[in-house]
């Protein structure tokens, strides 16, 4: 997962097609309308770090709608939610201003596996162990 400091957001190359999806968008409608065609990056919003709607949006974009481009977390993005974001299908995150990325890597290193399936590993632990 690409973690970007707030003051280090690269200038987007003019050719890159980015779509910002609000938290209350109807994803099924959006996909049906063709809005995702040719999109290389979707930006999802965390208006507050405690607002978890974008986790469901990212997961559905990946798992159900097979979106293969970058899914970026924006807004109130902090360290302790990055693993959840990664597991839900985010591939990049712009940290909120003032958040130091130093503590991020050890969060990713901590757990070797989780109980439930996610975007990275759709099978739950019990299905993996049985395989």
């Amino acid at each position, binding site marked *: 997962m690409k973690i970007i400091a707030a003051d280090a957001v690269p200038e987007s190359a003019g050719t890159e097609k980015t779509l910002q999806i609000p938290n209350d968008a109807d994803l099924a409608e959006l996909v049906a309308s063709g809005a995702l065609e040719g999109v290389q990056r979707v930006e999802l919003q965390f208006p507050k*770090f*405690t*607002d*978890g*709607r974008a*986790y*469901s949006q990212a*997961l559905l974009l990946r*798992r*159900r709608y097979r979106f293969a481009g970058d899914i970026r977390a924006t807004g109130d993005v*902090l360290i*302790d*939610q990055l*693993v*959840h*974001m990664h*597991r*839900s299908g985010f591939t990049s995150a712009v940290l909120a201003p003032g958040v*130091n990325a130093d*503590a991020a890597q*050890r*969060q990713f290193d*901590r*757990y070797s*596996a*989780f*109980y*439930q*399936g*996610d975007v990275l590993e*759709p*099978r*739950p*632990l*019990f*299905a993996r162990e*049985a395989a």
Partner: protein
Amino acid sequence: MYQYTDFDRQFVKLRAQQFRDQLERWQRGELTDEQLLPLRLQNGWYIQRYAPMARIAVPYGEISSLQLRTLGRIAREYDKPDPELLAHAQATQDQLEASQPGQTLPAPPLKYGYGHFTTRTNCQFNWIPITKAADVMDLLASVCMHGIQTSGNDIRNITCDAWEGIAEDGIVDCRPFAEITRQWSSLHPEFSYLPRKFKIAFNGAAEDRAAIGWYDIGLQALRNDAGEAGFTVKVGGGMGRTPIVGSVVREFLPWDQLLNYIEAIVRVYNGYGRRDNKWKARIKILVKSEGQAFIDAVEKEYRAIVDLDGAPHTITQAELDRVTSHFVVPEFKRADLPAKVDPQGQLYQRWLRQNVRGHRLPGMKTVTLSFKRPGFAPGDADADALDALAQLAEQFSASEARLTHEQNLMLPWVFESDLPALYEAARKLGLAQPNIGLLTDMISCPGGDFCSLANARSLHIAAVVTERYQDLHELFDIGPIDLHMSGCINSCGHHHSGHIGILGVDKDGKEWYQITLGGADGSQLSGPAIGGKVVGPSFTAAEVPDVIEALLDTFRSLRQSGELFIDTLRRVGHDPFKQAANAARHPKVEEAQAL
């Protein structure tokens, strides 16, 4: 009971390690209080009136002797306030009492060094300094315990009927399903920041002993005509400011679809639940406002999980078998200890009647130890009691015990022939009060003695009612009754479901109490889950015990032979009870209200 695998053990240890890392970053100023808040809540750590409170999960109530001993050690070594802090806290509480002359009750002094059993089968400690929090979590992890998701806006500790797998009226043992759901919900990447807390309860017997109508999701196990297990799914129950009983959204959900269906419900809630107003954020508000549209959305999402996503969380027979194998009948042996108790003695007979229940295995019984006793708040167990419980469970119940949602502790594997010796041992510990299901077996939250959300104290009322009703003849004459008490509208004391409910409210900095009548938790005795109705303007603390007495006197004068309080109330209606309650107001208060 469930035995942790290497993975489970490691997972809990890593969680403790993660929490230590978060606390250290907060102490270094890398996390603000606001940023730490949900992280510590998701590990069960609150900051209360005077000190942190740790809420330790006892998933579906099952606890071992080893774990009880560890809770005892935490009570003894860690649940200790600094003397200055305690003195300050006591002085503040004394001031609260002094500020309400004539209106309040003498309160027992603040205590420390004990665990408190809650209505959701957690165990709380009130005085552990935050600087010791990480050490306590490490200690808990060493016996496969934790505080994962005992608070926060996530899927909370899962509860069950305490008699799962041993009840005479059992249909399906829900403990394996509760454990599978616990694992699935732990550190769920998508559902850790829901609009509000989310509580799931299972009931696997004919009688609802888990109050599933009052849960965000209530799952009633049943079998179809082919004998296959499944669940009736209720959604949108909850207490709080807007008490609502859950609606059935599925009559029969096949057991293997359990996680897929819960996922659909929680995903719809995560997307559409209100986030603008804490009081309207529970799923019950969404279910109420959307009605059939909510059910349709859940069914549509569930179909998509199955048809489009490949339903990856379909529970396999192999996984159910694996988890079920942990819940086999343990190896147990008779204690065969000598007992002097007269088997025909009245006290012993009463204990057999109230505290001992039948078992699905012949020759076995379940025994509920009463944590409703004078001198202790409901559900409180000090370090010595926790150690003694560990030993009782070892001697008499295959080293297993279960917390009940009525804040008692039940021994699930007791030989009938060991009952006299167990009775004697429990009596010596002060845990053989034959009051299970009776008035003094009241449910109460810790209230304004500890909780920063509370509007009023509850423990001083519990203490006075407990004292007043110590005469067993009177207690038995009153008969089975549910008295539930909450110190605020968050309803941790389940006042909405009490036959008599007491709710603490704040008016101008003073403690007042609303009294409700006719609530039900869904048990056979209480009838289908329903919220009680308020009897009238609120009462002072000093009046509450007298109001309860007046309600009980009214019942005793109006009852027909053999009738229970709740039945008389329903037969004659609330009016005579309301009149009696209002007549019990103290004159001074009427003057005060006239001002």
